[in-house]
């Protein structure tokens, strides 16, 4: 995405995930805002251009260069705000003329695209811009640097280049870049301010409905993820309990023989299943029951050692739950 002049910053670095787009749009619209709002997400930038509170253009550009405009861009922005959980909003107030130029840059008619400067007569082009009373933006750039000249009715409004924040009156940087080898130009034109005022995306897009639908869908997805996560947690806990049960069985079998498996299964069933191993009181009762059975099969010394092993295994597992 191009760097754009900042003009007069109204808001900077607002957390986009905490905002509701319909409310933001409503505020900018009712405040007859002129300028642009820039939403910056991890790999996506959305620019909304306003003229006297009317949303005249919406452009979304992804990191890979893919672009969406209008309704698609607004829908995608809603999704990003609701789902991404990150992103910032910057709002810059600009003059009407400069805003028009920004619109031209973003969504204007492309008259030249990546035209090598040495292959065209730049003086003739500038003359044509002037004589055609063109509104728009001329972008001059190389691999590393770029500058923009904004026009209204064929007259330059100002100059903007990488590294600066605002419109400048000096054309020095633009001329320098134009003089670099391999310099190219893009030329975008747009309608005048009055014509632009005739369109308002907010009138054709039911933003509140898009927002509500997306919110509901997102909530459903969140619930689904939450349920899946809970199920995963439950399954993980069940797996841990099964592992612990097997460990307990192996310890008892080691001391009392194969009959130990049945004893453990029966005593666990008496305590309401292997979940009792998570509960301190229930696991103590379970160990006492195992002791009672073991006394019929092995010596008290071996029973004591076995119970110590059981308690240690259960305590270790409990600390992991």
């Amino acid at each position, binding site marked *: 995405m191009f760097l754009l002049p900042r003009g007069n910053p109204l808001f900077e670095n607002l957390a986009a995930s905490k905002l509701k787009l319909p409310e933001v749009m409503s505020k900018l619209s009712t405040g007859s805002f002129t300028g642009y709002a820039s939403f910056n997400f991890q790999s996506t930038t959305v620019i909304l251009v306003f003229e006297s509170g009317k949303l005249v253009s919406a452009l979304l550009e992804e990191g890979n260069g893919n672009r969406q405009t209008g309704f698609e861009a607004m829908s995608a922005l809603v999704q990003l705000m609701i789902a991404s959980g990150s992103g910032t909003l910057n709002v810059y107030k600009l003059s009407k003329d400069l805003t028009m130029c920004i619109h031209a840059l973003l969504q204007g008619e492309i008259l030249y695209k990546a035209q090598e400067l040495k292959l065209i007569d730049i003086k003739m082009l500038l003359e044509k811009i002037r004589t055609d009373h063109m509104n728009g933006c001329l972008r001059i750039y190389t691999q590393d640097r770029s500058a923009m000249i904004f026009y209204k009715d064929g007259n330059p409004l100002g100059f903007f280049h990488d590294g600066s924040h605002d419109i400048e009156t000096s054309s020095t940087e633009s001329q320098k870049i134009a003089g670099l080898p391999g310099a190219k130009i893009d030329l975008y034109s747009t309608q005048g301010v009055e014509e632009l005022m005739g369109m308002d995306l907010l009138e054709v897009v039911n933003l509140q409905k898009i927002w509500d639908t997306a919110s509901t869908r997102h909530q459903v997805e969140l619930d689904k993820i939450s349920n899946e996560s809970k199920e995963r947690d439950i399954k993980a806990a069940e797996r841990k309990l099964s592992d612990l049960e097997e460990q307990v069985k192996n310890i008892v079998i080691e001391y*009392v*023989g*194969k*009959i130990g498996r*049945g*004893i453990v*299964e*029966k*005593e666990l069933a008496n305590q309401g299943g292997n979940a009792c191993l998570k509960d301190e009181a229930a696991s103590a009762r379970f160990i006492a029951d195992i002791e*009672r*059975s073991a*006394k*019929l*099969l*092995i*010596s*008290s*010394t*071996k029973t004591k050692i076995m119970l110590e092993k059981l308690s240690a295994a259960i305590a270790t597992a409990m600390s992991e739950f």
Partner: protein
Amino acid sequence: MEQFIELLNQLQPLSLIQVILWGFAGAMSFYFSLGNARVWTSISIGFFLVFLSQAYQLNPLAESYYKLSAFHYIIGTVAIMVITHGFLEYYVFCRTFEISGKKAVVYLVTFLILVASGIFLIVNPAPSPNTIRNIKMVENAIWVFLSFMNIELIRKIYSSIKDSAISKGFIAFGIVFLCIFLWKGSELYLQVFQWDKEWMEIVTLTGEDSDIALYPGRVQFSQMVSQYAGLLSSISVSGTFIYLYRLLK
């Protein structure tokens, strides 16, 4: 005291040793029952009762009081029933891993049965020598049947716990019941064919005929089996409880 000494003089040395050994087995089994689970209580109390049933041979009053003599045999019957109850509980534990009940109940129920038996003897007329012999025959029949049943129970218990430390103790119990089966079985055999000592005493009193002279070999062999198997029973019970005590210590 004089009566007791006279009784000792009348006793065969082998019978006296047998009673003493049963006394030791009874003491061992009773001691074993004190610190162990209820299942062992039934078994050990039962073997202790065997000693009480055998002790009639040392009881100077038993000869004079037939009711007391009968009571000794009833104790013997209760003994094998309590032992069988213990093995049955152990078998149930091996199959279901279920342990229920309290030790006190075993002591109490055994005591109540003995009291009831005593009352039964008190309220009935004094038993004749023939009646006492019948009671002894019933006792032997129950011992033979339940010994056989216990051998089968022990076999099943052993197959369930054969990889446990205590499993060899059950092999020892198997040997105990094999000895008891021979001991009581040979006595029952003699009683059924009326070749036993008590019948001979009755014959002397009543003047009835006896065919004992026709089968001296069988009678002698059965008497010998009864004496030695009885002796081995008491020795094997003592040895088994000592072995179990060491296993479960």
